């Protein structure tokens, strides 16, 4: 039988060159930001917002692609930060070497955990991941480990050497660390986008949609999700290492339920179906917490804001804009 050639995408999706050009322009413009902000509060807020944004990207990816609510992303964020700090303090690693080994440790840990939790039901998945992060928070705070982990006070460290051409000590400055955070956010978002739109990403979503049909189509449905989980753990580790290098500090609070909740709420605020949404969600959520905190009602107003988002824009703050864009495109 002769068949006509297949088009991989509908014609309306052929806008990637335009979108790519616009993205490149925004990316390059971002490097000029410290010159305008001159360090200080806003710069610090943006740095923290993007770190939360990377964690939100992780949560959003696993939620959108695999259907799991990852309520323990802090485990990999904190693990990478501690591994980096311990390698510098106890083993004399340079900042770059410590970061690389810390990420490998985090990847291995996420892979092992993923191999176990991917098999369980969604509620158990959520609770195990959450419990694991809490367990690690208490573990690093153990008095008997104080010499290595700093106990409940956290672990201060002084990184040496250079990280991608930047002196490690300079990274402690909010303006100087910005290029690293900004680039890492774009790289993470780009990688998540590439994976999500690849055959592997479609495969993950297909498993989420109908695992039985996938098995009847000859697919293994276990390992792809383990690899996805490991990748997400690694990405959270990148955020953890950068945060550790940016502050020279690893704290038990990095493992806390608040860190995981912030990432989850930032992902929901921004919307989990894109890569821009969670990053924007991270920035907005961090800004909102800061503003609400300044008023003295952080928890109260954050709670109200989250309820309003869930009720009126459950697909995230970008969704209405996307709908407007589509209407504009049709007009």
């Amino acid at each position, binding site marked *: 039988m002769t068949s006509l050639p297949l088009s991989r995408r509908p014609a309306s999706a052929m806008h990637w060159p335009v979108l790519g050009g616009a993205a490149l322009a925004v990316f390059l413009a971002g490097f000029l930001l410290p010159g305008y902000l001159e360090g200080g509060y806003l710069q610090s807020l943006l740095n923290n917002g993007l770190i939360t944004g990377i964690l939100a990207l992780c949560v959003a990816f696993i939620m959108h692609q695999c259907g799991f609510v990852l309520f323990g992303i802090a485990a990999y964020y904190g693990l990478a930060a501690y591994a980096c700090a311990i390698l510098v303090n106890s083993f004399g690693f340079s900042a770059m070497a410590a970061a690389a080994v810390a990420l490998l440790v985090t990847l291995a840990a996420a892979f092992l955990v993923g191999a176990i939790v991917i098999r369980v039901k969604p509620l158990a998945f959520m609770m195990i991941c959450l419990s694991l992060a809490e367990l690690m928070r208490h573990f690093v705070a153990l008095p008997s480990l104080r010499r290595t982990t700093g106990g409940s006070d956290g672990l201060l460290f002084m990184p040496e050497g250079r990280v991608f051409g930047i002196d490690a000590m300079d990274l402690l400055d909010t303006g100087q660390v910005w290029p690293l955070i900004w680039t890492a956010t774009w790289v993470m978002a780009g990688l998540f986008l590439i994976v999500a739109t690849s055959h592997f990403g479609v495969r993950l979503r297909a498993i989420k949609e109908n695992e039985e049909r996938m098995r*009847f*189509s000859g697919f293994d449905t276990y390992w792809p999700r383990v690899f996805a989980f490991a990748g997400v753990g690694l990405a959270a580790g990148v955020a953890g290492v950068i945060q550790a290098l940016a502050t020279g500090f690893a704290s038990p609070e990095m493992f806390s339920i608040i860190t995981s909740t912030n990432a989850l709420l930032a992902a929901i605020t921004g919307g989990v179906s894109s890569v821009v949404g969670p990053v924007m969600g991270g920035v907005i959520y961090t800004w909102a917490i800061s503003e609400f905190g300044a008023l003295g009602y952080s928890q109260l107003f954050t709670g109200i804001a989250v309820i309003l988002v869930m009720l009126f824009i459950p697909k995230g703050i970008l969704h209405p804009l996307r709908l407007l864009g589509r209407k504009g495109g049709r007009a």
Partner: protein
Amino acid sequence: MIRVENLTVAYGAFKALTDISVDLGRRGQVHSIIGPNGAGKSTFMDAIVGKRRPSAGRIFYKDRDISGDSIQRRRKDGMARSFQKTSIFPGLTIFEQLDLVAAHLNEPDLGAIIDTMDLREVLHLEAARAAYGVQRRVDVALGLIGMPDILLLDEPGAGLSAEETTNLFRHLRKLAAERDIAAVVVEHDVEAVFALSDVVTVLDLGRHLATGTPAEIRANPQVVAAYLGTAA
């Protein structure tokens, strides 16, 4: 192509299938499985494709014992299945899901399957938004990918009108002939089965009652008494 020997499937003390032996699936033919509700038709299908493990007996596929093979292994060996309830990927576009499975199973001509199942116009539609009839065709198309040797369809006419079911059967006969595959169909619509099947097997209360041509089955007094009654 498939030889079932003394197959028994039990759920605890209850035997859904008891000591069934039958040959199924000749290339280019449609082989239907019929029987009253509770006859064990779907369990029989599940056992063949590996969803249910036999409690006793063996299943041979191309003269190889596949009783212990995984679902994935059987699919890669050329045994495809569609489901009683449409089983597709609702959140993916029709193209995404066909393309995904085609890449995995090295389908040489996905376009031909798309044209055969008349899906080209709806390729970039999210499957959940497609009409039910389209979703059924996507379900069958997913089964056709990868040049399967045998396609097992569990009540492909479920949710379709009698006319649509008859058309689907005609489609299956054409597909079986064109792609030289064996089609094994579990179906309730007896008239469609008799009109368009080459071979019919009747199950009743988990036991094998008869196998033969539609004419032989119509004339079988045991089948008439157990299932067809005077309607046939």
